[in-house]
């Protein structure tokens, strides 16, 4: 290992399938401490599956996964990870308030002990960061899709994680709130957190991103510095000549 501090995520040669279909065909992904990595690619290219492999909810058929230098099988420091799933509804069959949903993000901290004042304060801070503190007592089912997304982001922030994994956090979030989230993310990175983001467009996050990994059909097609506006232009099949052609890695233009 060359780094004195082990990478937050080290996925090597990951092979995984879903519903019997191979979806990841040898994905390498590393997120170093303090790094912000964007995972890009077309619909169905395996971005969400990669992320789910990193959190262990899609099992690997081949390859290795290390989180903070610990092999997945013996990893227990879950309080260091915050996760925002790809847009699902935050609502379930029974009403729950925004505060109750965000509070589940503190489970790794308080575990079996009661929920204490500092947990409550952390929930308030996270809700404030996404601009939803004034809706804390409302039912999540009564929120709009974009507002629910912000609640899910707060749920990931509430444990002050060292690694934030976000699957399309900006989907359905308006421009002003995207800017607010970008600022939130900047302060998270400022205190040393690493970030793995699935995105379609870099948008207001662009200045934050250190590296972009582009997936195509379950393989890594590009791993390097982010290309301006990569989001749209890196999609396979998107081969027209455009002003950034000189910056785009040649493989992407095939």
């Amino acid at each position, binding site marked *: 290992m060359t780094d004195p501090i082990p990478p937050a995520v080290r996925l090597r040669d990951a092979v995984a399938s879903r519903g019997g279909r191979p979806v990841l065909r040898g994905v390498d992904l590393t997120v170093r401490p303090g790094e912000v990595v964007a995972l890009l690619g077309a619909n169905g290219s395996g971005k969400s599956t990669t992320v789910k492999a990193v959190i262990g909810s899609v099992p690997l058929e081949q390859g290795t996964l290390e989180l903070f230098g610990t092999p997945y099988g013996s990893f227990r420091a*879950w309080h260091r990870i915050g996760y925002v799933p790809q847009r699902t509804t935050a609502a379930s069959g029974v009403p729950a308030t925004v505060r109750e949903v965000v*509070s589940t*993000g503190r489970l790794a901290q308080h575990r079996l002990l009661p929920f204490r004042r500092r947990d409550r304060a952390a929930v308030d801070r996270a809700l404030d960061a996404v601009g939803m503190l004034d809706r804390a007592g409302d039912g999540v089912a009564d929120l709009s899709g974009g507002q629910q997304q912000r609640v899910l982001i707060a749920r990931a922030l509430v444990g002050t994680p060292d690694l934030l994994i976000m699957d399309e956090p900006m989907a359905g979030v308006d421009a002003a709130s995207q800017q607010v989230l970008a600022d939130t993310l900047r302060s998270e990175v400022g205190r040393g957190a690493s970030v793995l983001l699935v995105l379609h467009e870099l948008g207001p996050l662009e200045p934050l991103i250190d590296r972009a990994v582009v997936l195509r059909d379950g393989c890594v097609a590009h791993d390097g510095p982010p290309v301006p506006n990569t989001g749209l232009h890196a999609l396979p099949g998107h081969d027209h000549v455009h002003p950034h052609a000189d910056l785009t890695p040649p493989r992407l233009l095939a």
Partner: protein
Amino acid sequence: MTEMLSYDFMQRALLAAVLVGITAPAVGIYLVQRRQALMGDGMGHVAMTGVGLGFVFRTSPVWMAVLVCVLGAITMELVRSRGNQRGDIALAMLFYGGMACGKLLVSVSAQAGAGSLESYLWGSILTVAPEDLVTIAVLGAVVIAVAVGLRRQLFAICQDEDFARVTGVPVRTLNLLLAVMAAVTVTVAMRVVGLLLVSALMVVPVVAAQQLTRSFAATQAASIALGVVVSLAGVTGSYQLNVPSGPAIVLLAIAVFAVFSVIAGPLARRRHRRGGTEPGPQVCDVRIPGPGRSRNPGQAPEKTSSDTTTPERRAGLAQ
């Protein structure tokens, strides 16, 4: 009333009703949350095989039902967590097989007449034996302790399983625990509400309560309170009117649900008015800038018009 309470069997039935009234909604709420409201129903069917085995081997039908039902629940949970496409078919086989097997076993056992199975199916206040009461009390206490003590963990896995896994919660273990608890609840409630209606007591108080609540904690508390009230009232009604207790309890619960859903709308409106927050302007008062709009069509809207927090804050409901 005092006459009713002077009978031993009624004292036992009422005690059992309280325990069942607490246990069934306390566990049922998690099944409803995960949109598995009918799982209890399936377990009731499977438990019939246990009752039948109890008849055949002349052991306690309650403990046999617990055993069979727990095995059934674990099977169901494994099928669910595999995300199997044909999972529903496997479950259907389990349910129908359980029911058919139970009836068959009862009919080959010499001991029982038809009336005896009937009491397991529909619930009966006359049949809560002293040893049944002990079983119900012990199992009920364990289930309540788990359902309330692990409330945050169970809430998390039923709300969002993937996220719960990332908080380090032992998702698999808790899923199995929940399934086992549901199975135990079914058998605990069996004597009072009957196997065919057991699921109703796990589901109806929850959906009735949630007509009026916004938080999970309040829903759980209210549904347990409701469960106790309808169980006690149902058992009392069963004594007074000489009808089986299960249907009496369930119809009462459904009546409460109907009343709650009727008053839910007006109550919510009143809560908004009373909440102290102004509900926002009644009519649209936003001016559309005429010429400015057509001049730069491709541009992002101005910050003020797209800032969602401001209108929301104004429209914010009472905390």
